[in-house]
C-alpha cells in the first residue's frame, strides 16, 4: 500500500490537516445556524408587540397593524392538514409494518413513499391548484390544508413504519396468544409500545409543513381579512412573509421579520420538543 512509503512526519501532517479542516467545516455549519438564528431574532424582535398579535394588517404604506389573521390562518391550515394527514399516514404505516412484510405491493408503496418525500413542495402546490382550486374557481383554506396534508403524509408513513418495526415481535405474539384480534393488538399493544416515537414523528411532520410556503402560494393564497369560510383565500404567515418582503414598504418588511421569527421559533420549538420527548422516553426505559 501507498501509505506505508510516506514518512511519519508527512502522515502526521496530513492527519492534522484533515482534522483541522473537518472541525472547521463543522464550525462553518454551526456558524451559519447561529448567523441565521441571531439575525432573525434581532430583526424579528423589533416587529413584535401587542398589536402584532391582535390586529389586522394595515393597507399598503400605512404604519402599524398586525398579523393576527395570518397567525390564526397558519394555525388553522396546519391543524386541518394534520387532521387529514395523520390518520391516513398512521394507517398506511401500519399496513407497511404489520401487513406488508415481504410483499411486493408493500415494497412498491414504500418506494413511492420515499420518492414522495422528495417531490418538491411547489409541485404539490401546482397539483392541488389543478385538482381543487381550478374546479372550485377559488383559492381556499381547504386547498391549502390539502396541499400540506399531501406533503405531510409520506413523512408520517415512513416514521410510523420505522417505529412499528422497532417494536419486538414477542409483544405482538403475547397479545395474539391470548386470543386478542390482530387489530386490537396493533392499536392496543404495538401502538402503545411505539407511542413516543409516533408522537415525535407526527410532531416533526407538523413542524415541517407549518413552515412551508411554496405549496400555499397558489392554494391558500393570502388575505388581509379574518377567515370567513373555508372556501375563501386565507391569510397565513409564510405567504405574508413572501409578499411583505418583496414589497417596497419598510414597515411591511419589518413585519415580515416578525412573522419569520414567529414561524422559525414555532418550528424549532416543535423540533426540539419532539426530540427531547423521544430522548427522555428512551432513557427511562
Amino acid at each position: 500500500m501507498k501509505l506505508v512509503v510516506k514518512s511519519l512526519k508527512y502522515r502526521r501532517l496530513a492527519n492534522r490537516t484533515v482534522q483541522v479542516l473537518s472541525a472547521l467545516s463543522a464550525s462553518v455549519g454551526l456558524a451559519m445556524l447561529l448567523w441565521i438564528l441571531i439575525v432573525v431574532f434581532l430583526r424579528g424582535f423589533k416587529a413584535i408587540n401587542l398589536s402584532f398579535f391582535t390586529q389586522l394588517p394595515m393597507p399598503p404604506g400605512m404604519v402599524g397593524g398586525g398579523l393576527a389573521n395570518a397567525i390564526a390562518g397558519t394555525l388553522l391550515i396546519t391543524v386541518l392538514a394534520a387532521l387529514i394527514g395523520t390518520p391516513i399516514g398512521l394507517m398506511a404505516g401500519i399496513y407497511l409494518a404489520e401487513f406488508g412484510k415481504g410483499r411486493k405491493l408493500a415494497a412498491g408503496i414504500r418506494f413511492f413513499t420515499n420518492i414522495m418525500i422528495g417531490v418538491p413542495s411547489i409541485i404539490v402546490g401546482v397539483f392541488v391548484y389543478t385538482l381543487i382550486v381550478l374546479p372550485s374557481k377559488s383559492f381556499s383554506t381547504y386547498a391549502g390544508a390539502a396541499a400540506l396534508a399531501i406533503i405531510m403524509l409520506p413523512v408520517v408513513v415512513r416514521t410510523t413504519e420505522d417505529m412499528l418495526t422497532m417494536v419486538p415481535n414477542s409483544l405482538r405474539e403475547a397479545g395474539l396468544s391470548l386470543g386478542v384480534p390482530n387489530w386490537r393488538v396493533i392499536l392496543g399493544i404495538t401502538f402503545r409500545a411505539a407511542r413516543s416515537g409516533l408522537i415525535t414523528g407526527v410532531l416533526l411532520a407538523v413542524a415541517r409543513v407549518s413552515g412551508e410556503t411554496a405549496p400555499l402560494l397558489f392554494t391558500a393564497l393570502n388575505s388581509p381579512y379574518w377567515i370567513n369560510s373555508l372556501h375563501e383565500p386565507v391569510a397565513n404567515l409564510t405567504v405574508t412573509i413572501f409578499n411583505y418582503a418583496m414589497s417596497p414598504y419598510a414597515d411591511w418588511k419589518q413585519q415580515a421579520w416578525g412573522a419569520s421569527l414567529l414561524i422559525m421559533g414555532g418550528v424549532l420549538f416543535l423540533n426540539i420538543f419532539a426530540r427531547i420527548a423521544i430522548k427522555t422516553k428512551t432513557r427511562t426505559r
Partner: protein
Amino acid sequence: MEIGLQKANSKGSYRGDRLFRRLALCCALTIPLLMIGIVFELVRNSRLSLAQFGFGFLTSKAWNPVTQDFGALSSMYGTAVSTLIAMLIALPLGFVIALFLVELAPPRLSAFFGSAIELLAAIPSIIYGMWGLFVFAPFMSNFVQPLLGKYLDFLPLFQGPPLGIGMLTAGIILAFMILPYISSVTRDVFQMVPPVVKESAYGIGATNWEVTKAVTMRYSLRGMVGAAFLALGRALGETMAVTFVIGNNHQIAASLFASGNSIASTLANEFTEASDPIYLSALVELGLVLFLITFVFQAAAQLWLWSIKKKLA
C-alpha cells in the same frame, strides 16, 4: 388489560381484522394514487403547451407572456447551475462534517454539532429566503463578489457588477440548505462501518485520516453516492430560498453574478399572475419537467440505496 377480555375467535373479530386490514391497505394506496394523480394532472393541464411547443419547449430560450412564446431552457439552466454550485460546495463540506461527527469529535461535541446541523435542516426555507435577501446578498455584494471579481475576473464566471442577488448567491444558500441532508445521511453510513475493520487498521498504526480514507470511505462510498443523490433531489426543487435571491430574470448569462431563474422560482413568481390559458399551461409544463427530473433522481437514489442494503444484508 381490557383487550384481553375480547371474545376470542368469534366471527366478529375476524371480520374486524379483515376490515382493519383493508382500511390500512386503502390508506397505504393513497400514496401511489397521489403520485399517479400528480402525473395525470400535470400532463392534463399542460396539454395546450405540449401541443403548441412540443419538444421545442425544452430547447427554447423564449419566455414572453405578451407574445405567448414559452420555453423552458433558461429555467432549466438556472435550476441546473444553482444545483451544481450547491452540490460543489455542500458535498465536500457535508462529507467532512460527517467525518468530524463520526471519527474525530469527542462524543459530547459530536452530539452537540449533530443536533445543530439537524436544526439547520429544520429551519423553513422561507427563513433562508429572508436571510438570503436581506443579509447574505448584501454580504456577498460587499465582500465576497468584489474579491472574486478582483482575483478571478479572467474567468467569465466572475465578471459583471457585484449585485449580491444572482445565481452564485442562490447556489451558496442552497448549499447550506442541503448540507444537513448530506452530512446526516453520510454520518449514518459512516456509522455502519464495522468497528472491527477500523480497529484493525488502527492496530497496524494507521492515522485517523488514513483509516478514514482507506477503510471508512471505501466501505461507505456507495452510501455516500446515495446521500448525494438525495441532496440533489432536494436542491433541484427548492423554491422559496432560491426565489428570494436568484433575481427572477429569464436569461442565460455566463456570469454567476448575473440574475437568473429556476423552474421552481418561475412557478412561485408567475403562477398566480398567469391569466392566459397558454401561459398557465406552459407553467404547468415547467412543473411537469421539474417533477420528472426530481422523480428520476429520487428513484435512482432509492434503487441505489436499496441495492446496497441488499448487498450488505
